[in-house]
């Protein structure tokens, strides 16, 4: 049990998929700066990331590897994540404003997210057993969702702050992302 807790915390905080491993950054910068929208987007991403990477893991372990088709892994991963994203987006259409207005954008972001691909590839290379890999996926998804919400809150403050003209917009967000990832280095010895 403790090893699962360690895996989840390690994946969520210590090796945070967004700020430490630097995957999936585009999805973060194009998300909303309204906290409620960001929470909805975070939940969506959590779901998609977890389910997609788990499905990819199962696909790799049970279908591709026994048949010796590892070279097809990337294409299959992308295909599965896209179709899963569409399925989930269609089913929660009514509730989330972001998914309706920017449906196409959300689709590209969530399905073509390098985070999903990265996690899936790491799963295919790792030595963890199946339940441990699922825990690892969940931890990564959790860390990603956490960062989306944290960044929306940060963006809310940046929006209202007195920023010099050359830094407004993307520049100050990238700078803050850099500073926050340095802060996350503080988790280094946790697990």
């Amino acid at each position, binding site marked *: 049990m403790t090893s699962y807790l*360690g895996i989840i915390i390690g994946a969520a905080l210590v090796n945070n998929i967004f700020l430490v491993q630097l995957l999936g950054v585009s999805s973060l910068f194009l998300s*909303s700066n*309204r906290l409620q929208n960001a929470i909805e987007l975070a939940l969506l991403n959590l779901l998609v990331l977890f389910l997609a990477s788990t499905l990819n893991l199962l696909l790799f372990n049970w279908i591709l590897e026994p048949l010796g088709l590892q070279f097809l892994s990337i294409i299959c991963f992308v295909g599965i994540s896209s179709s899963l994203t569409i399925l989930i987006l269609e089913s929660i259409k009514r509730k989330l404003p972001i998914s*309706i207005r920017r449906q196409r954008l959300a689709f590209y972001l969530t399905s073509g997210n390098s985070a999903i691909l990265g996690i899936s590839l790491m799963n295919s290379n790792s030595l963890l057993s199946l339940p441990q890999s699922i825990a690892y996926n969940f931890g990564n998804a959790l860390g990603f969702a956490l960062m989306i919400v944290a960044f929306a809150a940060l963006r809310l403050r940046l*929006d209202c702050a007195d920023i010099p*003209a050359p830094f407004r917009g993307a520049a100050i967000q990238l700078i803050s992302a850099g500073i926050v990832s340095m802060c996350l280095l503080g988790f280094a010895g946790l697990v």
Partner: protein
Amino acid sequence: MYPLIETIYVQAAIACFAIFLLLQIMFFLRKYWIHSLEKQYSIVDRINALLPQTQCGRCGYAGCRPYAKAMSLGEQVNKCPPGGESTIVNLSLMLNEHKKTLDPAHGEFLQAAVAVIREEECIGCTKCIQACPVDAILGGTKLMHTVIESECTACDLCIEPCPVDCIDLIQLPPLKPLWQSPGTAERGLSGRSFVGGGSL
């Protein structure tokens, strides 16, 4: 991994903490659950709450709610003149759009106004009563019509049907402008750095 955590006490403590966290998350999400049971939580209702409810049709839709529904399906946010700048800003924030200026095809920003019937010329045809979307006109057939000033939304829909053209739209006196700090104005700080649509 850590021998201390293997003991039953620490595991029990961690389990309690986990349950506590779970309860916190459940309470947090309970807000969404309760709201989803009320009518307000549907996305169209949430967008509708930001519109000024004048039911004027200047956006091209028959009322504010149809426009809200269209916006939830992808319609532009800059079509509401009575709402003013603040409505466009609020809508773009909620729907994650970049800030736009008002679409000139749908009119200009309006001052507050009310419709007033010139009673000497009114013939009592009830055409304006049928046109008013909020039933703000009192009257009956061949009887005097008058506009209830507090209920009139200045939507303009009564002016066309009137056969003797006796309805005027009177502008209400404008409110005094809010104080603008001279320092803010000259440094261009009023408003936010960017509205909606993320940063890129």
